[in-house]
């Protein structure tokens, strides 16, 4: 039996949107008083550092920004050190 492959993440959002649109009233008179602009990040209250050990993954010295832009990630050997600001 072939296991079902996970769908692409973008497809998941599209699928959910289709599901939601099937339920949303066609002529909903809900007001839209607030623009759905990208929200500001929650105010940070504390700096945080996270260290991850990835025994199977060794990398040379590297530095970069995490995919969500919330942290700076420094990697060397099996270590990943993540400096970021997180809401608490």
């Amino acid at each position, binding site marked *: 039996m072939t296991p079902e492959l996970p769908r692409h993440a973008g497809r998941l959002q599209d699928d959910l*949107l289709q599901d939601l649109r099937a339920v*949303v009233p066609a002529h909903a*008179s809900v007001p839209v008083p607030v623009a759905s602009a990208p929200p500001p990040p929650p105010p940070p209250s504390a700096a945080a550092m996270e260290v991850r050990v990835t025994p199977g993954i060794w990398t040379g010295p590297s530095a970069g920004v995490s995919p969500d832009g919330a942290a700076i990630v420094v990697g060397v050997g099996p270590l990943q050190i993540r400096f970021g600001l997180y*809401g*608490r």
Partner: protein
Amino acid sequence: MCSSKGGVGKTTVAANVAAALARSGRVLAVDVDPQDSLGRAFGVVAKGRDDSLGALLEDGSVEARAVVRHAVAPGLDLLPAHPSLEAVATQLAATGGLTTSVRRALRPLLGEYDHVVLDTRGDLGALTLAAVCAADSVLTVFTSDPGSALGAVRLAAFLEQHRTYENTSAVLVGVACAVWDRQGRAARDVAGALAGTGLPLLSTRVPLSRRVPSSVLAKRPVVLSSPTSAVAAAYVALADEVLVATGKVPA
């Protein structure tokens, strides 16, 4: 506070938004959920029907002020529920009086408060409709659970249906993220999908925080127990955003 789905953080949002609103005005928090969680969020537990909302719904001659718990938090009074509310609702439904019961019960109290926050249980049943019929505005919430997004759009459809029937004139003023997991893809997908529905998605997102369950255990909403925390700031921002959305304060 309404949702067709339970476990999405309605009561926590209701308690914290009520506490946040009480910073600038008199607030009455009303628990319309027989699970009585809103009262418990403030450490208030009704002993039975006679000292809870059920008494007011069942008997219009009961003095509402005698059932209200005063000053459970600064600027905030509370009308608790009790599990017996379920039986009261069933009885009222049989006689046709349930839909307008909450509105009638609260009417004598409205002049004393700037804001009344009603918490409902996670369904779109007759008791929830009774709460909606007492409200001007409805706020709902979602999490990273896709089911919570479905709950939000089902609520929008529910409101539309009951406006058509003239059971209510309440409008959906906002759909807020009650537990924003900024590290999680699911949260972004759910928020992105909801943004595509045209529902009024609020910009404030309450961050996932360990402080919230701790505050429930401590029977003190996080806005009061950890007022300088990021999650408390988010609840305050959400309350402010709701006030703007309802037109109670200018943008």
